[in-house]
């Protein structure tokens, strides 16, 4: 169980550019939840994931993962519990290191790195097996540097690396948005496979309403740093894109109404 309790985060606080990115947001994530996160630009989706990962310290509120209060843990320490895949395929891997070096780094996520050899006996075989499951032929290219791979290949590798050590929660921040539609589809299938196989607790940001409905067991919609819709179970399976769009327009309409009130 992951509990976000009344989380608040301002950016550029005290300046004219002040943004309230998370507004007293609370969320309980059950083990094994696969939550899709939607919302317009600036709604706070990425901020929510970054808050969980520890990219910044909250202005207010607390975060607990399995009863451990991680609110003040720095990002690298939380990495023991959390794995991430970023929108930018370049962020998840080291370009000048080889595929096997990247995987060896990921296999030691959250562990103490000492003066032992960077790769241990048997690990290479394991990497080869794992890579063969994603069907991109990378299992024969262990010694190739990652900079030679395409964005899609790098993102697939990042997905695999994120789950080499089972994370308590997997954060996917629009991880297919920068890929061409075909590759995006493949990575999405891979995501579904890995998440269900390891029954991972997952948060996935997407701009695609269809994906948001199709994937996962729970859906949340963010607006101005708050959760304005939270559906799961049967309610989610009967959800349609139209429902979501209506919800979208309803909050935007309210916004317009507020603006016009201000202007008149």
């Amino acid at each position, binding site marked *: 169980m992951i509990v976000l309790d009344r989380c608040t985060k301002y950016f550029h606080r005290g300046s004219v550019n002040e943004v309230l990115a998370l507004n007293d947001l609370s969320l309980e994530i059950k083990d094994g939840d696969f939550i899709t996160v939607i919302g317009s630009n600036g709604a706070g989706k990425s901020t929510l994931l970054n808050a969980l*990962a520890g990219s910044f310290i909250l202005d207010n509120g607390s975060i607990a993962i399995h009863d451990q209060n991680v609110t003040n843990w*720095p*990002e*690298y*320490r939380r*990495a*023991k519990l959390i*794995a*991430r895949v*970023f929108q930018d395929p*370049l*962020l*998840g*891997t*080291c*370009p*000048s*290191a080889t595929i096997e*070096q990247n995987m*060896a*780094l*990921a296999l*030691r*996520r*959250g*562990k103490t*790195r*000492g*003066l*032992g*050899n*960077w790769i241990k006996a048997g690990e290479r075989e394991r990497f080869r097996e794992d890579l063969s499951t994603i069907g991109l032929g990378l299992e024969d290219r262990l010694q190739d540097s990652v900079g030679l791979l395409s964005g899609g290949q790098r993102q697939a590798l990042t997905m695999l690396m994120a789950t080499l050590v089972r994370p308590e929660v997997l954060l996917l921040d629009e991880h297919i948005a920068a890929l061409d539609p075909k590759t995006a589809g493949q990575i999405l299938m891979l995501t579904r496979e890995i998440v269900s196989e390891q029954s991972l607790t997952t948060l996935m940001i997407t701009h695609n309403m269809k994906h948001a409905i199709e994937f996962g067991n729970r859906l949340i919609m963010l607006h101005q740093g708050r959760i304005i819709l939270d559906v799961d179970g049967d309610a989610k399976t009967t959800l349609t894109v139209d429902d979501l769009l209506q919800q979208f327009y309803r909050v935007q309409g309210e916004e317009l109404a507020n603006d016009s009130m201000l202007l008149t």
Partner: protein
Amino acid sequence: MTIYAALGALEQGLVYGIMVIGVYLTFRILDFPDLTVDGSLPLGASISAVAITSGMNPYLSLIFALLGGFIAGTVTAILNTKFKILHLLASILTMIALYSINIRIMGGPNIALLGADTVFDPIIALGVAPHLASVLVFALFAVLVMASVIWFLKTEFGQAVLATGDNPQMIISQGVNTHLIIIVGVGLSNGLVALSGALVAQNQGAADVGMGIGTIIAGLASVIVGETVFGSNSIARAIIAAVLGSVVYRLAIALALGLEFGGFAFSPSDLNLITALLVITALITPKIKARLIAR
């Protein structure tokens, strides 16, 4: 060039090669341009010289020099990581502070090692000629340092160092405290630079507070020469290339100093200008090349 001049260049290339490995660690691997080295080279020299003149074994004095350099490096790295001072500025601050510290350590701007024990004595005692003994000792140290650094970079910790320079966000997400990595990495780099300074001082028979001027530029020039001439497609190769680059650089300098055009000859004080021009050329050629190809 006489055989003695060539031997001298080889000797210098090897001993400064240890410094170049240090510069390679920060400049290329950690992507941390570090000017501390201009201060940590004489720091190592001062520590070793003072230790020897007060009766310490010259080999043991090297360990203290290395430690001193390590601490200097960690100061720069802590200023950068914990207090968010720009790496260049942080390193300049440490370098400037070291100037005063080095004079304090020596009790003056320089200290002579005439007649004192040095690391070369045991080799000379074996019957090796003095000018060959220094080449031999420096070659031994250079090989030892190359082997240790290559081994280190192939450990789990070393791989995290490589990744920190390559993609910090990635390695943080893999649970690595990059601040610690940078502190240890810059520390190690300056430890090696100080070791190099200590050996230089023992060779030239004196430590001097001004001996570090231009260290970073000579280091960069050697790194670039090494990469260009010997390649860098694996870590081991890049480290060896750094030392060989240092040797080639010192040979080139010796050659340049021997040149004469009519009445004009280079003097040793022109060295910094020549080196700066060499580094500038190496830094801008790829960009000019890219622009020409784009046309």
